């Protein structure tokens, strides 16, 4: 009796994840709207984007409940291409 149906316990963390994603999107938009730029701001915006991507992978795609290499595919993608984007911006300002 009253045993939660499979998956129902996902609703609360996914709702919090959604609210966090909306909040972080607002921060990114506000930075852009204020016209802020420069290396540190760009890297901050990139870090927020990568964190948001990780939230999507972990909670919406359900990879936090997966073991092995599949657990890390989104993390690896974010690190490789986030790293390349970050490197390009660093080189832009220091090159």
């Amino acid at each position, binding site marked *: 009796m009253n045993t939660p149906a*499979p998956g129902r316990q996902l609703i609360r963390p996914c709702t919090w994840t959604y609210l966090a994603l909306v909040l972080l*999107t607002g921060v990114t*938009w506000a930075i852009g709207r204020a016209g802020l730029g420069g290396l540190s701001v760009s890297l901050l915006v990139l870090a927020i984007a990568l964190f948001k991507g990780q939230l999507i992978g972990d909670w919406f*795609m*359900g990879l936090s409940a997966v073991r092995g290499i599949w657990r890390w595919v989104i993390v690896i993608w974010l690190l490789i291409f986030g790293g390349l984007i970050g490197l390009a911006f660093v*080189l832009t300002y220091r090159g």
Partner: protein
Amino acid sequence: MPEPGETVVEPADTVQPYPPGDLVIWIFILAELLVFGIFFAAYAFTRLSNAELFNQYQLTLDRDAALINTLALLTSSYFVVRGVVAVRAGNSRLCARWTWGAVAMGGVFLVVKTAEYAHHIGAGINLSTNKFYMFYLSLTFFHYMHVILGMVILAAVAVKAGRHGYSRDDYVGVETGASYWHMVDLVWLILFPLVYVMR
């Protein structure tokens, strides 16, 4: 301990060896992510030697429209999650409603993005205008096509769910469509700050 002969149903939230949905869609998702990742890196490294041009023309983009589109995709992804939860609980009809909601939010994205394209095309901007617009138009349009494909997949899932085509024992189709849609959302979450904000 289960009684002899009793069927043990693994909750969908316990640790699994494979991601949700058909494994083939995950191979497809990885291929798509690789292509988008290379596209993002190409944008960033082209900007390296054209920073002033990229910064100048980035200001012509509508960040408010991008905000609306980001919120639309995030909301649609959340609706898809709720659809998956509903079908895991055996409520196929509720899954259909959530999934149609996700399709509607995808529609909001298409309307806003189409309006942006109409504005740019009306101003005489095309792929040949400059390097920034070449990347902006091709990258966002490539993503736009993925949104359309994702909406078609979600609509097919919603139609089947509405006809009780899924059950608590058979919902891999819902998870497959959901995984693809989350990938479309994930790509936009990188594209939005990279093209509209970072400068």
